[in-house]
């Protein structure tokens, strides 16, 4: 047993300035060493190149998609207002489409966008699924993962950090310089902090061009609206980078050899980055399968036939008819001053809205249960926690898609109300040839997508953020414990 515990240096007030100076010296040395290392520079160049490829392809796609969807939404609106004279209920069946606009930060992290429909047909009586998933038109290799900036920063940059830092302590121990360093008066803690700052600073310097380019592209594309979200993203990714670096230094300080440190770190990286997410995602599906389209449709059809309330839809119609006849003091439907069919459509829509709320609710709860399993697994894989935060802040998460779908559905319901009311108020019962014109189509309003405020994304990121902070806290604790009992000599 030739591993000796490091001499415990009691911190004295006079040593404060000296400590800071020693940390700075170590940091400067590590920074210079990293920036002079050809392998580090080569790795950084590869990362920058991949980042540029990801940025260029995602930027082009973003520009393309946002133009295309804006044009399509305008075209659909034009088709709507120019549909000519029609019975409003025919117009309701014709319907309108809602397109999900591309949000600027999707160029950074596309999240689940490739696996979500981009348009919803808003028609009478029916809530449709979003259609047109981009992934359906990609090659099967898309399932290997898309090369995005988010992926570069979630998977590749951490690998670079590990490779930079795995030997930080172990190689100094193997070559005997660790003993010399400590003998010169640097404490293990100062050494640790210095190495952390030096290597972290080097990584930041090397990645700065790519980060600045991303921020520049964002500001040029969308002004400063998304800057707060981008800065929040930056903080989250910096936190993850710090976590990885802490882990690498701690493992390096504890491992018996550089080789052992590297193996442990590489295995950890591969498992948390690629293996745990897949297992967690599929485990969720096994535990709580999503209903099939067939189940969904059968459930909807059955409930539409009977209604969800105590009264059947037919009974509700009958009751309303009685009420109206009494109100207007007439005997027959034809004598009402309104078109009762408009009221019937309204009742049918109330029934179908409740049914669709119920069944979309079942579907969403099943997906939520799967996401819960995934979220629980972030405890094992901080990379998954980062991915969830990143999707939220970039506006490309599952919840952002739901926000789009709910907004579109709310618009559909308002639209149908307007059309049903128009039939009821402007025609008489039995008047099948009633036609409305452009005035009505112009007054139904336009579908507009409103992105969620940043605080909604932040609120939803609370759980993964907590996990990330906990990981950081544990690693800070572990690194303190490691520096207290640093092995100085190689075995």
């Amino acid at each position, binding site marked *: 047993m030739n591993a000796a515990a490091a001499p415990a240096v009691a911190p004295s007030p006079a040593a404060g300035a000296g400590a800071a100076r020693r940390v700075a010296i170590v940091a400067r040395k590590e920074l210079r060493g990293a920036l002079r290392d050809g392998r580090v520079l080569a790795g950084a160049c590869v990362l920058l190149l991949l980042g540029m490829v990801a940025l260029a392809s995602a930027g082009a796609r973003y520009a393309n998609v946002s133009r295309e969807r804006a044009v399509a939404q305008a075209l659909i609106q034009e088709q709507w207002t120019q549909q000519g004279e029609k019975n409003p209920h025919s117009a309701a069946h014709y319907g309108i489409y809602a397109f999900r606009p591309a949000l600027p930060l999707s160029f950074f992290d596309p999240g689940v966008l490739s696996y979500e429909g981009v348009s919803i047909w808003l028609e009478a009586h029916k809530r449709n699924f979003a259609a*047109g*998933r981009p992934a*359906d038109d*990609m090659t099967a290799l898309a399932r290997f993962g898309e090369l995005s900036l988010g992926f570069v920063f979630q998977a590749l940059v951490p690998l670079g950090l590990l490779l930079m830092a795995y030997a930080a302590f172990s190689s100094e121990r193997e070559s005997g310089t660790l003993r010399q360093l400590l003998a010169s008066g640097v404490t293990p803690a100062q050494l640790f902090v210095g190495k952390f700052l030096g290597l972290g600073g080097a990584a930041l310097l090397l990645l700065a061009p790519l980060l600045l380019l991303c921020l520049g592209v964002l500001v040029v594309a969308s002004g400063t609206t998304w800057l707060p979200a981008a800065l929040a993203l930056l903080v989250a990714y910096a936190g993850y980078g710090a976590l990885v670096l802490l882990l690498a230094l701690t493992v390096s300080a504890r491992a018996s050899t550089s080789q052992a440190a590297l193996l442990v770190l590489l295995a950890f990286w591969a498992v948390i980055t690629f293996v745990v997410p*897949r*297992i967690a*995602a599929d485990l969720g599906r096994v535990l709580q399968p*999503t209903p099939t389209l067939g189940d969904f449709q059968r459930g909807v059809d059955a409930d539409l036939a009977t209604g969800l309330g105590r009264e059947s839809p037919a009974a509700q119609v009958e009751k309303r008819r009685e009420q109206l006849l009494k109100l207007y003091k007439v005997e027959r439907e034809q004598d009402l001053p309104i078109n009762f069919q408009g009221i019937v459509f309204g009742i049918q829509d109330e029934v179908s809205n409740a049914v669709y709320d119920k069944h979309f609710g079942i579907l969403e709860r099943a997906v939520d249960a799967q996401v819960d399993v995934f979220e629980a697994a972030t405890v094992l894989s901080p990379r998954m926690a980062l991915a969830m935060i990143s999707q939220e802040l970039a506006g490309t998460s599952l919840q952002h898609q739901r926000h789009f779908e709910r907004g579109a559905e709310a618009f559909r319901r308002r639209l149908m109300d307007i059309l049903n009311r128009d039939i009821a108020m402007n025609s008489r019962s039995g008047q099948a040839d009633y036609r409305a014109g452009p005035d009505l189509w112009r007054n139904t309003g336009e579908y507009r997508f409103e992105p969620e405020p940043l605080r909604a994304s932040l609120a939803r990121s609370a759980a993964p953020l907590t996990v990330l902070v906990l990981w950081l806290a544990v690693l800070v604790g572990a690194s303190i414990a490691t520096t207290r009992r640093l092995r100085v000599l190689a075995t």
Partner: protein
Amino acid sequence: MSAGALDGVSPGAAAGGRERRAPATGARLRQELHLLRREGLAPWALVALTLLLVAAALNGRALLGVQARTAAALEDEAAQTTRALAEQAGRGVATAVSPGVVGYSVLGEPAVLPASPLGALAIGQGDLLPAWYPVTARGPHHFLARSEPENPLRLSIGNFDAAFVIVWLLPLVVIALSFNVVSAERERGVLAVAVAAGASPVGFILGKVAARALVVFGSLWIALLAAALAAGVPLGSAAGLLPLLLWLAGATLYGAFWFALALFVNARPRASDQNASLLAGAWLLLVILLPALTNLAATTVFAAPSRVALTTELREASEAADRAAAASRDKYFFDHPEMQGGDMDRTAYFQSVAQSELSISEAMAPLLAQFDVQARRQQGLVEVLQFLSPGTMTWQSLTALAGSDGARLREFRAQVLAFHARWSGFFRDPLMRGATLTPADYAALPQFAFQEPPLGRTLARALPALAMLLALTLLLGGIALRRLRRFPVA
């Protein structure tokens, strides 16, 4: 560095000494296996691979099980509806004898893609692209865009299936066992001692690699067989056994490639941790980056047409068809003034529906075909670019053999479209003639049965990649051995 380059044993000496060295090689292999067991790596590899592969296979089977149950329920439902309608048609019930009502609003045929024997081992695109389409007499645009409600987060992460374990994780096992297969011996001085004791350095190293390969491939074969059983692969039939054997061959070749690469990296005098970094980098490049870049290239060069534009085109086509239908309705009432103010008769109504559907379908067909054209071009490019990466090659071959690649699913869609033409014609023709349906017609309804593409076509997609893997393995291994012959031992 005291010891200079060491010449390998000359070929003549090797040939002459084979008889005498044979038992020594066997003993060395046994000794290596013993060492591996002592390090705990061999059992670890076996257990990890088996657990992962079996879990992945069970996961794949669960997914296919849901699909199979869904398909069975749908077919059952359609058969019941058909029986009821046939019975009603026998009694002359008006809705059951009307080809318009039945074809355009009541009856549909679920066209189902049967699970392929190895489907549970590689899910591929199977959870993304539909495994069944509800075909009705209405236009294909009604059913082509359908998809199962899914968790997009799960889809975006990818499947945990046996193909994933092989393509992504098997190399990591190989790397963990062999990244220092030469460098560690050199660092510990064992190689110099062994050579001094009369061993050939190449033979010594090959013995170490062989022991590791034996452990990995032995584990892999046992694990894959267990996974095949767990996945319910029909081992008794040629349709199950042949692809499974090719799977074993593909996985083994892929593993062999990684051994060859590890040996190649070890054939230069480098420190073990540098070897590990290099191999990790190679894994990242070959298994993660190149497939992603290949997909990016294929979808950029042959971008799919816009689904958004398709939506607006569909709307234009529907509007045009509606206007035509309104015109024909006006004509109908002009021809039948006695019906003015009432509903059109049922046949006339459905004739106009059929006409609308036909004209929308005709307008949409070239646009929809464009998606297929681009998908084929993308696939063509991927089949060329796959040779850049053994990861892509292996994955392509494994999913092709499992029948869950895009090609089989697109073939399914093409067959469904052909079936749809027969199905809709079956109702449209009598509808346009003004004829009615009889129970005999119900007995003669077109049935969908997927025709598996010939095995030759699947093999043509899988075998070149496997051959390339073999060539790469031999090339890398050969270069590595040549270099090892002139390798400093200390």
